[in-house]
C-alpha cells in the first residue's frame, strides 16, 4: 500500500493529475437535480460500450466488399463471444440513440439550453447528427443484402441535392456502382472519421458543462436574465452547492451501470440482428428497411406527395438541423419552467406524436406490396358458380392481392376489398380495374375480357352478409 501511495505521489508531483481531476470531481453542482439529469452521462456510457465492442469487432471484421459478409457470419456463429459482442454493439447503438433523444428532450423541456449554455446545446445537436450517422453507417457495415440496398437508397437520396447531387451519390458509393470501394469507405467513416469527431465534440460538450455548470432545476419565479444569471448561479452554488462526487455522480453511475447491464442482457438473450441474404446486388428479392430508429423517416419517404419529394428529402433534414441549431440563439432568456412554456411543451408533444405515428406506420409499412400474399381459401371465396371461383383465382394471380386485402389476406397498399360491392357498382369496379385510379395501375392491356369479367363477378359478391 505504502509503495502504491509513494508511486502515486511521485506521478502526481510530475503530472499534477490530482489538481486536474480533483476540481472536476469535487466541483459544486446545484442540489436536488435528481434522476432527470442522468441521461447525458448514460449516453456517454453507451458510447463507451460502442467504442470497446467496436474495437473488438474490428479485429475480426474484414472490410472487404467480397468478404465482410462471411467474416460477420464467422463472428456471429463461430467466434468465441462473437454473438454477444455483436449483440452488445447493436443494443449499445440502440441505447445511445434512445438516450441521446431522451437527454435532448429533457434539456429542451427544462430550458437548460438557455443562457449561458447555448453552445452546449449546439454541440449536442452536432453529436445527435453524428450519432445518427454512426447508426446508419453501422447498419451498412452488416453488409448483407439490406446493407447494400440501404447504401443505394442513401446514394439516391443524396442524388436529390441540387447541382452536386450526382457527385455526392458517387462519393457515397465510392464509384459508379456498389462495389469493392463502397464498403471500405463506410468502414473508414464509421471507425475513424465520425468517432474522431465524436471524441472531439464530447470533449467540448463536457468542457462546456464544467465551464457553465449543470443547470439548476427550473423555477418559474426566476426567469433567466443574461445580465445577472452568472453571478446568481455562482452565489447559489456557494450557498447550496453539493460536490459532484459522489452527491450527484452516484445516480449517473447507478443508471449507467443499469444501461450497460440491460445492453448485455439483451445481447445475450436476443442477440444481434440476423444477417439477411448475401450482399449480391443481383438477388432482387429484397426488403430494404432501416433499423428501428430511422423507421419513422422511412415512413416519411413513402408518404410524401411526389411533387414535394425533392424539397423534403433535401430540405427537411437541413431545416430540422437549422431549427435545432438556431433554437438557443433565438430563445436564450426568460422562463425555463415547462409550466410557463406552453409552446415549447406543445411543440415537443407534436414532434413526439408525429414521430410515434410515423414510426408505427414505418413498422407496418402498409404502402409496400404484400409479395407473400396467398390465394384466398374457398371458405372466403364461397363461389356459387365457376366464374366467381375463376375470378378469385385471377384476383390472386394477376397481382390484385399484392395491394388489396380481402378478409385479412393481401396487401394494405390499396383499399380493403372485403365488402367492395357494398360501395361500388359492378360498372364502377370494371372501370377502376380497366382504367386504373389514383395510385392504381390500369389493367386494360393485361387482362383479357373474360378475365376482367371474372374478377368483376368475383368482386361483385364481396358484400357484408345480411
Amino acid at each position, binding site marked *: 500500500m505504502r509503495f502504491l501511495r509513494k508511486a502515486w505521489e511521485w506521478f502526481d508531483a510530475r503530472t499534477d493529475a490530482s489538481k486536474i481531476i480533483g476540481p472536476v470531481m469535487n466541483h459544486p453542482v446545484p442540489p436536488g437535480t435528481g434522476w432527470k439529469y442522468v441521461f447525458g452521462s448514460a449516453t456517454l456510457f453507451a458510447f463507451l460500450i460502442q467504442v470497446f465492442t467496436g474495437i473488438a469487432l474490428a479485429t475480426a471484421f474484414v472490410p472487404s466488399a467480397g468478404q465482410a459478409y462471411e467474416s460477420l457470419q464467422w463472428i456471429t456463429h463461430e467466434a468465441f463471444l462473437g454473438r454477444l459482442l455483436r449483440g452488445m454493439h447493436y443494443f449499445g447503438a440502440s441505447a445511445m440513440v434512445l438516450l441521446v433523444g431522451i437527454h435532448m428532450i429533457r434539456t429542451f423541456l427544462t430550458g437548460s439550453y438557455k443562457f449561458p449554455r447555448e453552445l452546449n446545446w449546439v454541440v449536442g445537436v452536432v453529436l445527435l447528427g453524428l450519432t445518427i450517422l454512426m447508426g446508419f453507417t453501422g447498419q451498412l457495415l452488416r453488409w448483407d443484402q439490406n446493407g447494400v440496398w440501404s447504401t443505394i437508397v442513401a446514394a439516391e437520396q443524396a442524388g436529390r441535392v441540387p447541382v452536386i447531387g450526382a457527385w455526392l451519390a458517387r462519393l457515397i458509393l465510392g464509384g459508379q456502382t456498389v*462495389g469493392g470501394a463502397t464498403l471500405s469507405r463506410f468502414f473508414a467513416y464509421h471507425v475513424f472519421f465520425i468517432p474522431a469527431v465524436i471524441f472531439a465534440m464530447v470533449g467540448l460538450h463536457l468542457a462546456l458543462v464544467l465551464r457553465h455548470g449543470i443547470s439548476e432545476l427550473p423555477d418559474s419565479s426566476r426567469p433567466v436574465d443574461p445580465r445577472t444569471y452568472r453571478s446568481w448561479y455562482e452565489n447559489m452554488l456557494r450557498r447550496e452547492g453539493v460536490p459532484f462526487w459522489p452527491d450527484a455522480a452516484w445516480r449517473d453511475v447507478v443508471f449507467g451501470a443499469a444501461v450497460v447491464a440491460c445492453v448485455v442482457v439483451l445481447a445475450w438473450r436476443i442477440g444481434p440482428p440476423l444477417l439477411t441474404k448475401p450482399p449480391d446486388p443481383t438477388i432482387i428479392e429484397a426488403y430494404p428497411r432501416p433499423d428501428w430508429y430511422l423507421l419513422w423517416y422511412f415512413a416519411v419517404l413513402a408518404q410524401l406527395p411526389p411533387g414535394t419529394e425533392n424539397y423534403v428529402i433535401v430540405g427537411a433534414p437541413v431545416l430540422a438541423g437549422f431549427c435545432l441549431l438556431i433554437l438557443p440563439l433565438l430563445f436564450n432568456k426568460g422562463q425555463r419552467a415547462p409550466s410557463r412554456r406552453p409552446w415549447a411543451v406543445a411543440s415537443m408533444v407534436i414532434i413526439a406524436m408525429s414521430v410515434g405515428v410515423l414510426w408505427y406506420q414505418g413498422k407496418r409499412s402498409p404502402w409496400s406490396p404484400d409479395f407473400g400474399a396467398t390465394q384466398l381459401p374457398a371458405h372466403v371465396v364461397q363461389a356459387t358458380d365457376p366464374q366467381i371461383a375463376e375470378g378469385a383465382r385471377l384476383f390472386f394471380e394477376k397481382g390484385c392481392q399484392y395491394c388489396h386485402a380481402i378478409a385479412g389476406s393481401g396487401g394494405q397498399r390499396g383499399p380493403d376489398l372485403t365488402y367492395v360491392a357494398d360501395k361500388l357498382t359492378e360498372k364502377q369496379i370494371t372501370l377502376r380495374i380497366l382504367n386504373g385510379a389514383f395510385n392504381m395501375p390500369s389493367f386494360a392491356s393485361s387482362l383479357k375480357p373474360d378475365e376482367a369479367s371474372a374478377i368483376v363477378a368475383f368482386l361483385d359478391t364481396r358484400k357484408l352478409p345480411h
Partner: protein
Amino acid sequence: MSDAVPSPGRRKLLARISIGLGCVGAALIGVPVVGFLLAPLFEAVAKTWRSVGPVEQFKNGATVQVKFADASSVAWAGVTAQTAAWLRRELSGEFVAFAVNCTHLGCPVRWLENADLFMCPCHGGVYYNDGSVAAGPPPKPLTRYPVRVRDGQVEILTGPTPIT
C-alpha cells in the same frame, strides 16, 4: 530575453511566416488526402458491352432477369461486382433492358409476370411492362440500358447505378 528584444515588426514577420508555413504544411498533407477521397469524382464513366446470353434464349413478350459484371470493379469486390437488369423481348423481337433500381429511391423492383407489372418492395412504386410509371412515388420511368445484338448474343451496355 537575452538577445535584444525583437522589434514589433520582426515579431509580426515571424508570426506571419509561422502561420504561412503551417498552412503550407497543412496543404501538403491535405491536398493528396482530399484528392484521394474525391477520386471517384474524377474517374471517367466506365461502360462496357456485356453479353447476357444468345438471342434465342429469350422468348418474345417475356421479361427476364439477367446478370452481368460491372464495367469497373476491383478484385476484392466479390459478389458486389455483379449487377442485375430486367431484359424484355418485345413481341416484335426487339430488346429493352431496364435497370432494376426503382427511380424513387433505388430499391430493386420485381417483375410480376402474371400481373404484367414491376413492383417495388420499399415504398410501393409500380411500373407497366414498358417501364412507365403505373402508380406510387416514382418520379420517372425505369432507367434503360442500351441493348444490341452481336453475333447472336444479346449485349447490354453497362453503366453507373442510375441516380435519378
